[in-house]
């Protein structure tokens, strides 16, 4: 090995994996495979190929190279002191997955699964997407590696996330709006499974989160754990200690598992997953599967889910398309039952308040998904403010994605850029100080009028 070629990553350097799942994909009572027999051979093939690949130095080198040169890893850790003023005196550090290529953590997993697709000799990938971030990441990896790509997206989500639909099409992917059921992520997953069972000879299903049948929950975790592996080192280097709490939003839960995994053995570190509370868990209009659901079977695995007395999946509700899912990955259910991680709901209003706060205090527009984690930091920071005899708490928050895709949703929520609707939405101008030096709303010229004055 010459100096021009960095040494290949050594298998012995791989971080320790958790003791779960077992060989058949069970996290305690959760996980497993609840799928038609027709898919078992494909899942077995995927499992076998993945287990061989994940310890193959050639793969590890290629994966590390893509993460560095294509994604832009490691992602930075950012201190956000002006935001942290609202968090009870805690020090808040953001893990900046929003700065990855394609704008979220989703690319971490997709590059791994696309390499796996090549390795098993398939030429087509399919994916489901909610907010569009996983679809964009999959379309990106498919373009990079010369795979054909079809993305299933609920019709409702294609409307909410029109920008990402255009991005996927620019990247050469076919986007199929799904019109069955609730027309959201859950139904997009059903359609993707139907495509897979029909075209499994040529097609690999690039699953976007830590849910679904074995091996997806373990494999996606392994591809996403780089977030926490990096962040743990970065926090130690920056602060000289481990964080008091690690916070992440949880829909299916891939960014949360990604940042939690490295910290699971650190008993003193609280792991806090923020679920989408929608209008409030008590209203029934939410997507908080662990807080407001029960164990059952959905999309190929046993886990917590939102279901009625007949075992029918209940439609979820969230302002965030990426969290609008009535299930959750089985490892989260297990961590919850073990008491190793705690899960709490954040309402749409709380998330949007935190969204606006980060925009105005730090100049970072977060994804609405990630804003749920930021709202959790505000809550947990304030709860820890009263503790005696210790310095400021350190909170590590996974900023899993950027908010470009959410500008339209946020504009509608806050009543921006609308001549008729002038009342700001909750969060924008109520519980925070006006931005220093900013032009007040009353003095400003509305964007749509400014051209007349020029």
């Amino acid at each position, binding site marked *: 090995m010459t100096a021009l070629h960095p040494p290949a990553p050594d298998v012995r350097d791989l971080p320790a994996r958790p003791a779960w799942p077992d060989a058949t994909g069970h996290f305690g009572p959760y996980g497993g495979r609840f799928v038609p027999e027709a898919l078992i051979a494909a899942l077995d093939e995927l499992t076998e190929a993945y287990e061989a690949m994940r310890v193959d130095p050639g793969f590890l080198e290629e994966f590390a190279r893509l993460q560095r040169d294509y994604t832009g890893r490691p992602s930075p850790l950012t201190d956000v002191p002006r935001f942290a003023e609202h968090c009870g005196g805690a020090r808040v550090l953001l893990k900046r997955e929003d700065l990855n290529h394609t704008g979220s953590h989703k690319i971490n997993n997709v590059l791994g699964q696309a390499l796996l697709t090549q390795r098993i000799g398939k030429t087509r990938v399919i994916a489901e997407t909610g907010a569009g971030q996983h679809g964009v990441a999959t379309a990106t990896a498919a373009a990079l590696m010369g795979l054909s790509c079809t993305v299933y997206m609920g019709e409702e989500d294609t409307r909410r996330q029109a920008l990402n639909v255009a991005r996927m099409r620019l990247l050469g992917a076919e986007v199929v709006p799904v019109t069955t059921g609730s027309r959201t992520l859950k139904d997009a997953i059903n359609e993707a499974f*139907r495509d897979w069972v029909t075209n499994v000879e040529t097609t690999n299903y690039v699953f976007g989160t830590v849910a679904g049948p074995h091996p997806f929950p373990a494999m996606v975790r392994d591809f996403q754990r780089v977030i926490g592996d990096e962040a743990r080192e970065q926090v130690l280097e920056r602060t000289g200690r481990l964080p008091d709490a690690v916070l992440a939003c949880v829909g299916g839960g891939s960014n949360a598992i990604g940042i939690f995994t490295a910290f699971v053995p650190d008993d003193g570190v609280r792991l806090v997953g923020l679920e989408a509370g929608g209008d409030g868990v008590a209203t029934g209009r939410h997507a908080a599967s662990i807080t407001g659901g029960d164990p059952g079977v959905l999309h190929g695995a046993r886990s917590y889910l939102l279901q009625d007395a007949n075992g029918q999946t209940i439609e979820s509700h969230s302002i965030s398309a990426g969290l609008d899912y009535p299930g959750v990955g089985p490892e989260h259910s297990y961590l919850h039952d073990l008491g190793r991680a705690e899960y709490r709901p954040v309402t749409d209003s709380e998330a949007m308040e935190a969204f606006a706060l980060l925009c105005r205090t730090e100049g970072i527009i977060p994804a609405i998904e990630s804003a749920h984690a930021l709202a959790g930091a505000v809550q947990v920071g304030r709860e820890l403010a009263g503790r005696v005899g210790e310095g400021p708490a350190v909170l590590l928050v996974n900023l899993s994605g950027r908010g470009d895709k959410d500008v339209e949703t946020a504009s509608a929520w806050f009543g921006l850029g609308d001549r008729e609707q002038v009342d700001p939405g909750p969060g924008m101008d109520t519980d925070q100080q006006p931005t220093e030096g900013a032009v007040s709303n009353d003095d400003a010229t509305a964007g749509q009028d400014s051209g007349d004055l020029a």
Partner: protein
Amino acid sequence: MSRGMLQTRIAAARTEGRAALIAYLPVGYPDVDASIEAMTAAVDGGADIVEVGVPYSDPGMDGPTIQEAVDVAVRAGVGMRDVLRAVEAVAAAGAVPVVMSYWNPVERYGVDRFADDLAAAGGAGAITPDLIPDEAGPWLAATDRTGLDRVFLVAPSSTDARLASTTAACRGFVYAASAMGVTGTRAAVGDAAGRLVARTRTVTDLPVCVGLGVSDGDQAAEVAGFADGVIVGSAYVRALLDGGGAAAVRALSADLAAGVRRRVGKPA
């Protein structure tokens, strides 16, 4: 264990030199009463066995025809109590009722409670399209305890080892999902079905019934040439979706029943 209702009925068809006709209809479309009426009409027309379908919100193995009907039942809140009523009605009509259910509705109802109530209603057992024997521990125990049949699926992609282990866990018959794909009528039955049945017969003595794709008497005759039972679902549901009601279901059953009696290509 003695042969259950399913195997006995399929064996009876075989002694007549024909395959059994197995009709699938979901409970609750267009409503519960009308769906039960459709099931008894299917029996009148000649169905030997009725798959009593449990509505489910996320029917991952079903195509658009069945999902369209099932969505109506799900929205109407149709549940296991309605399913058990349909089971009783099918038994009273003289056919063998077997429940077809995705796993979550059974688990939600309670596996043991489901087994007890199904046995009490006169059901033969259940077909579980998204439950593989590997995950079926509580269901294997409940069916052993109650003597109910349990039907798992095999597919063209199943390895020989899986064909052996899955059929070993089956009781009643083996469901050969003949094509790789979801339910729905197809223009041609395809060679995959015959090959799958032949492979399955090398590892089990249980009857092998074929589903996915049969829509008329001619296709039924073709499948009856190599299978012990012909399973028809989407074509029945299509008859209801098109507004034909029980009469259309009865007519389809008659066509299919004639088909399974003129089996193609195989000596009796």
